[in-house]
């Protein structure tokens, strides 16, 4: 599997200036709205600590809470399935659909099903799948993965959406009015709710004590999909567990504030039991989570509630777009999760960060994201996954900087040299610094030379 080249992909993203600037501005607006909401709550930082503690407790007692959830959900009348990995998940879902003779599935947003690459798996087996979240639907129709875990088509301008819709659902290509586009999509999707034999959702939280799960949405699509067809399947990552309903209050207060800067999602649906005459199936998915739970430096990433606040605040994500990460999970949270799936493939991602730490500060469950990014770099270097040029540069730098003599020779040459070189030598294609920036002008002497000259000391 080839490596993701984040720098190369980001370069293409930035070339489309209108898109790149809109993307940055749109997500920065979400960050600002998040700030207004959190500042209006004096207890915000206390809530973050509480949320973090609840998640850490749950994750360190996960097996018990999972069994409690299974027991209670089963007693409620749900059918609980366990999936070790993506393949098992997809087979279980396919099995349930097959058993019910379902050929059309309406589906709300779920990063987990993207992680499992469920759509192509089911489509290859003759199942028609309709994404019902507007952003996900745009991405599905354009045959592109979501670029953001909350706003999947945020990298597209309205003109792009008009182009996709005119090509796929027959809208007027010249009409880029957002109401027209949203309404057209709505009219196109609605009949599928009635036609579908099955509906699928993810879950934001699963509650052990009640055996219920919670889905937070803004469009109402998940509720239509879950309540119209006679079969509801929910795919839930095992890290989504919470012990009690009372814990939900902490997370529901923070989820949408962190994500979109709105106090709460439009709809918070609690699913506890199938409606009479219908079935409700829950698939609990591991897919590497247990292994991650055993990683001393990285298990905290399982606290994630997928709000996307780290993406919105990340200056690198905002300027490179989610697709440049080449993975289901992008932005800071993606950078620390992706290498657990494939270290080699995603070895460039931990370097797509300035380590500025804003991601850690906005995270509602206090994941130490930038510290984990730093740690991944060490692991990537140790496992020999650094590009040769960087590895060699660091080897030489380490040697020079460990020797006062070599160091002095190098800086004195640099200080003396730069201004005497012709511009085309300094600003050559191999000098990445100089492509869009000037290099500093060379001073008359180094600080050390000045010090020795003016304050004495050995030469």
């Amino acid at each position, binding site marked *: 599997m080839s490596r993701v080249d984040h720098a190369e992909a*980001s370069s293409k993203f930035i070339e489309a200036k209108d898109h790149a600037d809109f993307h940055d501005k749109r997500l920065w607006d979400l960050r600002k709205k998040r700030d207004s909401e959190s500042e209006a709550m004096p207890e915000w930082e206390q809530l973050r600590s509480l949320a973090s503690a609840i998640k850490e407790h749950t994750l360190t007692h996960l097996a018990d809470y999972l069994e409690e959830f299974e027991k209670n959900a089963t007693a409620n009348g749900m059918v609980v399935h366990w999936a070790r990995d993506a393949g098992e998940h997809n087979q279980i879902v396919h099995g349930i659909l097959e058993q019910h003779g379902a050929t059309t599935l309406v589906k709300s947003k779920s990063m987990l099903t993207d992680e499992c690459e469920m759509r192509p798996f089911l489509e290859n087996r003759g199942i028609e799948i309709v994404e019902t979240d507007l952003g996900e639907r745009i991405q599905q129709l354009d045959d592109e993965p979501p670029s953001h875990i909350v706003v999947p088509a945020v990298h597209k301008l309205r003109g792009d959406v008009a182009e996709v819709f005119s090509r796929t659902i027959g809208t007027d290509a010249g009409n880029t009015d957002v109401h027209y586009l949203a309404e057209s999509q709505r009219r196109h999707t609605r009949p599928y709710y009635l036609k579908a034999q099955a509906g699928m959702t993810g879950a934001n939280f699963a509650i052990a004590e009640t055996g219920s799960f919670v889905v937070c949405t803004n469009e109402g699509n998940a509720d239509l999909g879950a309540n119209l067809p006679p079969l509801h399947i929910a795919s839930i990552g095992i890290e989504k567990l919470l012990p009690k309903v009372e814990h939900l209050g902490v997370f529901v207060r923070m989820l949408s504030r962190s994500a979109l800067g709105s106090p709460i999602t439009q709809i918070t649906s609690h699913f506890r039991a199938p409606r009479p005459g219908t079935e409700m199936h829950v698939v609990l998915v591991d897919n590497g989570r247990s292994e991650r739970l055993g990683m001393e430096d990285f298990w905290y990433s399982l606290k994630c509630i997928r709000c996307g606040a780290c993406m919105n605040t990340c200056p690198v994500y905002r*300027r490179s777009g989610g697709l440049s990460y080449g993975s289901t999970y992008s932005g800071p949270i993606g950078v620390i999760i992706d290498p657990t799936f494939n270290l080699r493939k995603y070895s460039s991602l931990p370097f797509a960060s300035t380590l500025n730490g*804003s991601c850690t500060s906005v995270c509602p469950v206090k994941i130490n994201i930038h510290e984990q990014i730093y740690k991944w770099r060490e692991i990537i270097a140790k496992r020999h996954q650094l590009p040769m040029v960087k590895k060699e540069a660091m080897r030489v730098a*380490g040697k020079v900087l*460990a020797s006062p003599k070599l160091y002095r020779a190098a800086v004195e040459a640099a200080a003396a040299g730069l201004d005497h070189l012709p511009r085309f030598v300094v600003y050559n294609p191999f000098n990445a610094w100089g492509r869009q920036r000037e290099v500093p002008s060379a001073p008359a002497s180094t600080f050390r030379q000045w010090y020795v000259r003016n304050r004495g000391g050995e030469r």
Partner: protein
Amino acid sequence: MKVALFIPCYIDAFFPEVGIATLELLERLGCEVDYPLDQTCCGQPMANSGCHDDARGTEALFAQNFAGYDHIVTPSGSCAHHVRDQMTAIEQTPAVQAVRRNTRELVEFLHDVLGVREFPWAEFPHKVGLHIGCATLRGLREAKASEIVEPAFNKPRMLLSAVKGIEFVQPQRVDECCGFGGTFSVFEEPVSAKMGHDKVEDHHQAGAEYIVSPDMSCVMHQQGCARRAGLPLKFIHIAQVLNGARE
């Protein structure tokens, strides 16, 4: 008070005037300043790239140069952050731990240790945009980050407020990262340069004549962007302003 001065490699090579201002300022405030002549770097470039094996020799040299000092002061936030919070490639002997614990960025040292609030010799009659690097902001916590809910505080700004004639202007994104990020600036050049150009444009739009910063590496990057873009922004280290530079 006896102080050891650490002048990071890039300041030594490209911005000697920042080292000189730091030295003079500390002396003006009554410190006896040693400058160990065999110093090079703190090891951050290698460690931030994940290459802890390559950082080891440099970190050992740093610890050796600065052993025994109660106060090690440097005009660079990210270097102080590396030494204090991340210098773990070498064995953590009591001597190494003491060096790490005793290392301060200049503003921290002035604000927290010396407790200086007056700079009667300083006058800087300009519109100033303050840039606090991310390691200084969130690593050393010299100011409240915009996304954290807590009472406002800002140590560099508090010190600069004592400078006669200074006027602060605020960019739209008050503490957005400028995109330097060490080797990030070269290996992720497209995003780094875009962030840098956005940053200097934001300061320019706010009406800044000068960017003042405790972080010269961010400044080196922003200055490179501003010069390429032809913006009339000027850049100066906080040590120079506090030491009485007029421009």
